[in-house]
């Protein structure tokens, strides 16, 4: 990877965030992880003050997104990311508790790259995150449009 990939983790539950981070690390992924616990902060970071997303030009981002956020739904963030000309190439992994088929379909329609339902069973959860970490370690992420 020529440009180190930054993982943006948008997850309102700090416990989940910690567990996710830990398991990603266990799978040997050492990339920077920038955590956000609510949608507003994440949006501010992603799109900058002017809302253009210009700040991330040339960066390689990977977004880990929870749908159930306290201040907005993850679907809105997904849509804005995929509509933004700088960010639309960034892979988005939706990682959430919802396993409603309508919701899953909608996410893929909006351009989500991977949809993962959080298993309640911790073994499966840890396993899923580790595999995701392995996936991260091999995935090629393009830099945001210059």
């Amino acid at each position, binding site marked *: 990877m020529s440009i180190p990939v930054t993982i943006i983790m948008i997850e309102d539950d700090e416990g*989940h965030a910690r*567990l996710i981070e830990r398991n990603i690390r266990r799978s040997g992924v050492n990339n920077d992880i920038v955590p956000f616990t609510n949608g507003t902060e994440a949006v501010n970071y992603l799109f900058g003050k002017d809302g253009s997303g210009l700040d991330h030009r040339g960066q390689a981002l990977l977004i880990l997104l929870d749908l*159930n956020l306290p201040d907005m739904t993850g679907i809105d963030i997904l849509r804005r990311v995929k509509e933004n000309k700088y960010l639309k190439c960034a892979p988005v992994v939706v990682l959430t508790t919802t396993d409603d088929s309508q919701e899953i379909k909608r996410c893929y329609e909006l351009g989500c790259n991977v949809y993962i339902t959080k298993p*309640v069973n911790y073994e499966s*959860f840890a396993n899923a995150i580790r595999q995701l970490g392995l996936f991260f370690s091999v995935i090629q992420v393009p830099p945001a449009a210059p």
Partner: protein
Amino acid sequence: VTADATRRRAIGQILLLAAGFLVLVAISASSVIFVSKAREDSALVVHTVEVENQINAVLLEIRRAESATRGYLLTLGPEFLSEHSAAVATIIPSVEKLAQSTADNPVQVENAKKMRMAVENRLDQFAREMNFVKQNQPSGAVALVREAAAENSSGTIREAALAMRAEEERLFAARTVAADLSQRIASTVTIAGSALVIALAAISIFLVRRSAGARDSAEARLRDNNLHLEATVDERTTDLREANNEIQRFAYIVSHDLRSPLVNIMGFTSELEELRADIFRRIAALGRAVGTAPVPVLAGDAEPQLEGEDRQLSQDFSEALAFIKSSIAKMDRLITAILNLTREGRREFEPVRIDTSELIEAIVTTVAHQASEADAQIRIEPLPEIVSDRLALEQIFSNLIDNALKYLKPGVPGDITVRGRTKLGFAIFEVADNGRGIAPKDHQRIFDLFRRAGTQDKPGQGIGLAHVRALVRRLGGTMSVHSELNSGSTFTITLPIEWAASNRNRDT
């Protein structure tokens, strides 16, 4: 309109009808009486006229005899003699007839007697005159004629006849008056009766119209009430549906949101478990470092050798973690169950024609392994075809058959029967087994969510029957159980044969 008033009105109408009927009967009876009276009166009038005729006839015959006598006296023509004889021959019967027809009247009887005497006297004179003539002594005859004229025997007869006629005329007048009277009475009675009947009819019509009006207004009120009722029912149904949707949403959100913390609890419990292993390994290492014995290096994750209190601590730690984990697992199962139920409640049902026998055969095939393990046979009797939701039916029957296989009596070969019949637009299915049965006190409980009955020796959440009943209800049916402890159970499901997606799931 109170029931009392209605009854009074009904009685009034019956009385009116009865009165009208009585009046009609009275009119008919009096008409018959008066008509026969009028007939009698006219007969009497006719009789009077006949009597008068008879009197005239007698007088005429006497005149005829008289004139024939005189003719014979003058001409001695034999034709006058025969004329005379003929007239004389009719006089006495005529007088007799007259007497007979007036025999009922004492005045006339007296008159008739007088007349008869006068007539006989006159006839005697005639006979004598004729004898004189026959003996060729006309002078004698003439003398007799004169004598007769002097005696005025004809006058006597006429007087008697006049008296009789006068009497008859009096009777005639009286009888005519009587006949007129009875006819007038008859017509008066008829008119009065008819008027009464018309009056009663008018009252009846009035009453009938009034009750018809009352009925119409009652009907209108009933219609209004029905409309109102329908509106109320619609309103309530909408309310209920909204409440139901709310509950579903609530259940969904709650179960969903409960999951997040559960993931943390479970995750960090697992993390704690790993920490525990590290901690006790270190404790073991430290304990050995204090002791003089050479430390055997433990490889990997092998359980560290602990002694005394440390060992006890480690076991307590493990026990606590095990309880936490099993509770989390249980809670997870419950939440998953609620989620599945709410998801099922939100699913749109799609009515299709289903060959129920085929559907149940397919279910039986999937449980064939369990059945042979439980030494059970499943028999399917002919089942009716219905229009319903296929997935829901599959879930209903597979739950029931699973339950039947699950709760067989230990040591007794299972015998499960699926029966079906139709009745009044509904298909009735029965799943009967010879298993352990359900005590009557638990018949309601088994349909409640998370509730189970009997010996708890089989894994399960207590969801199956609650789910089945919810499905049956959504399909517009009902469900019941018939069972005794130790003598098997029969679950009966009644479903509409032609189920159209009803308003029950229109907006869920």
